[in-house]
């Protein structure tokens, strides 16, 4: 039977959650990782572009070699393009193999306190207890997805969100605020006019392959967006950089106004998610909520952007949670 008591519980298995869980078990903590869907573990749901993954450990760099498609230089350093399928496969197996880590698929619907410890309640009725919990629920609280005329529940298109968790957090004095994240469209290679694109070959940076390129496309104000292949086969490209430019009800028209994409066929439309995040000013540099012992947040739920930042926060929160004085 699954233990109901742990040293640490991590809620959410996105980038922040997986790094938090990995860090915690490496420090020897008995950890529970709870997620609404184990199929989306480590999912790069906001575009397969990792800016500055310098935080990857040597082990991760080795293990993720095959997931890295290539990198280009950008103002802030480098942008690394990842094959999400391989990336997820690596993390799924890594975590399933980790000692001291218990994984459970269920939606977290609330937090509570019992005898000074934190408690989480799941949708199917289980309760788990721990001295510290790290919430890495991303964009899934009070979440609404929007693309085109579609406006419906969900933390990402097709995936269920939770409003119950947010309510219990507010009951404990946590302040939440509305926020919004956007992801770009994924486009079929077939309709792209390559002649209008500027090819940017990968640089040899990460310990991965460097053959291949991304493409830059201009909008009508001559700003550049990037079209990145989502895997080595190159059948589909992710349009990065245009996420916040367009209203979701004009998303398709926006893509078609880009130079060379007039005949592009969109596979997955870009989308926005309105969700509840932690109001600013509530967490310390260690990701801990002021005034609430043992409660930590990491990742997009804190209002941050970028996987790099999410992974940094996940590691920081785990280090603080595990080594804290009880």
């Amino acid at each position: 039977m699954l233990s109901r008591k742990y040293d640490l519980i991590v809620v959410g298995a996105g980038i922040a959650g997986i790094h938090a869980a990995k860090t915690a078990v490496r420090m020897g903590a008995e950890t529970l990782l709870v997620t609404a869907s184990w199929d989306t573990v480590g999912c790069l749901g906001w575009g397969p572009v990792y800016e500055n993954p310098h935080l990857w450990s040597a082990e991760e760099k080795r293990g993720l070699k095959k997931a890295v498609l290539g990198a280009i230089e950008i103002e802030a350093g480098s942008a690394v393009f990842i094959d999400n399928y391989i990336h997820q496969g690596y993390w799924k197996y890594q975590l399933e193999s980790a000692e001291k880590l218990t994984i459970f698929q269920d939606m977290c619907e609330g937090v509570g306190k019992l005898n000074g410890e934190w408690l989480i309640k799941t949708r199917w009725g289980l309760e788990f207890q721990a001295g510290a919990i790290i919430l890495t629920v991303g964009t899934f609280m009070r979440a609404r997805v929007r693309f085109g005329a579609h406006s419906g529940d969900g933390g990402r298109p097709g995936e269920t969100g939770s409003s119950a968790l947010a309510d219990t957090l507010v009951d404990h004095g946590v302040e939440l605020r509305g926020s919004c994240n956007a992801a770009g469209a994924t486009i079929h290679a077939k309709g792209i006019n390559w002649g209008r694109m500027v090819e940017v070959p990968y640089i040899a940076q990460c310990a991965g392959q460097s053959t291949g390129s991304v493409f830059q496309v201009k909008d009508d104000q001559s700003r550049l967006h990037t079209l990145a292949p989502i895997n080595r086969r190159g059948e589909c490209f992710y349009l990065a950089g245009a996420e916040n430019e367009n209203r979701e009800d004009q998303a398709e028209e926006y893509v078609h106004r880009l130079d060379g994409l007039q005949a592009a066929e969109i596979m997955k439309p870009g989308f926005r998610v309105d969700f509840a995040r932690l109001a600013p000013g509530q967490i310390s540099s260690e990701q801990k909520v002021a005034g609430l012992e043992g409660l930590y947040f990491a990742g997009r739920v804190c209002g941050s952007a970028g996987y790099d930042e999410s992974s940094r926060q996940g590691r920081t929160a785990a280090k603080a949670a595990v080594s804290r004085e009880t």
Partner: protein
Amino acid sequence: MMEKQQYDVIVIGAGHAGCEAALAAARMGRKVLVAAINVDKIAHMPCNPAIGGIGKGQLVREIDALGGEMGRVIDRSLVQIKILNSSKGPAVQAPRAQADKREYSRLMKTVLLGQEGLRLIQGEVVAIRQLGGGRLEAALSDGSQFSATAIVVATGTFMRGELVVGQKKVAGGRAGELASAGISIALESLGLRLGRFQSATPPRVLALSVDFSKMKVQPGDRTPINFSFSSPTRIKNRQRDCYLTYTSEKTHEVIKKHIHLSPIKSGSVSARGPRYCPSIDRKVINFPDRERHPVFVEPEGWKNHELYLQGLTTSMPVEIQEMIIQTVPGLSAAKVIRPGYAVAYDYLLPHQLKSSLESLSVAGLFTAGQINGTSGYEEAAAQGLIAGINAALHCRGETPLVLSRSEGYIGVLVDDLVTKEIDEPYRMFTSRAEHRLVLRADNADLRLAPIGHRLGLVSDKMMLQVSKKARDIARCLDKLEKRLIGPGASAGAPVAQKKGAAVKARDLLKRPEINIEQIKDVVKLGGISKDARHQAEIEVKYQGYIKRQLDQIEAQKRLELLGLPEIDFASIEALSTEARQKLARHKPASLGQAARIAGVSPADISVLMVYLEKCRTGS
């Protein structure tokens, strides 16, 4: 409407049915749109991570023979393969493969993305409308609209889906995924009737917490075969093992003690579940004398520590699931990673379909897969293939492809769906096929590749291969007929005739203790492929039975050829009331099909024959 929004065929759903439908229609030259609610879950396996099995293996071989994709994809993503019932007769032997689920899905998606004439989009269809002039329209939740001549609805368990564990219910199509109400509403507004079914899946456990020493290893076949007739010979034999354990008395005690919490007893799921894929709670109640039930522990992929517990399907509350698992040898310390759950969903009553899987009342609307009340990826894929082929033929204005019950398991499947009362999820078995000796997994290519080739779905190269196999079998039979084996023949002691006159090799082969490999040198069959030799052997050994089945098929054909025009059954007073109702409901295409409808007796068939004769002679 803008030119780019018009298609020949729209396929709604990219599960096993949707993928086959889309690929078939595109390969037949149609412009196809596939709308998937989640493009990262193409051809997903939400339940058993396996393809094939009894009855299902035959379906996969037939799908492959007709040019479908399932066989090829599983060959490239399997972790184990074996032939079930290899010690029994050829009619019940079937291949079964464990799949690397993630890899299967990725490969099928790659095939879709690489298919000329096919466009995949992510979106949820919320309305289906009939436009004028033989066109249909599908509207998506994001506001986009597409029109087509044919629409194939293959939405699986997502229609008004509800997830159930114990007493708790939550809307959803699968764990973590949103359900959809749009299609149900769309179909109802088109005048179609829906029913409600439920399907459940067992919990998954982490491999590191399982004690395999208490279980029996279930390896794959030593010489692994392929599913697809077109896959290259398997060279490497790298396979993962499955394991077998059993429930214990303690397991049954736990279930009985908590049976009031089972959704079956507590009534929280009023929908019907699959009789042949029952939950462990249902098994324990229905078979109280069984001391133990088998539990097959199956890996879900290569680099994957999740294990699927086949035989422990349940949607009892999670604590009870854990208690049940604990009592099974080898699983006493097993950690559940994903709890089991049930999903209740709308399905379309399939008597509303023609044998082409086109709706009886809405021209150009086809439905395929779990939406028609079936369970199983193979059953879904088979329907998807037929629906896709017929959607394409509909666009061309040609007669649809209808396989008869004597041509394939696919024929049996579709005929059963449109004639029987489907009041629980339908699953294929060899016992459903009355002609199973003729419809074998090993001869699907001979039976169906010519049809696939005619449709343009099977390559010339594949067709040459099949023709060669047919010629080889004929050559082999000819040699067996002509070669006499006398006493002292050098083929080895068990084969040599002890005394008496020389005997035809064919007659010698009829003996149960003789197999064709033993006599192949004497009869000079070395130049003929092993597969062809095997086929010839079956023909010889089962000659009598095969002839009987072929005769039955001929007799049945005569009834099938008697087509039924539009008849006002209510006006035929000599028919029983029930027959009148059922015939009006199912609208059978032939007298043979009418005979199979539950509630239509042989006496009613005689009445119809008299009626048809009267119509024909105008009296």
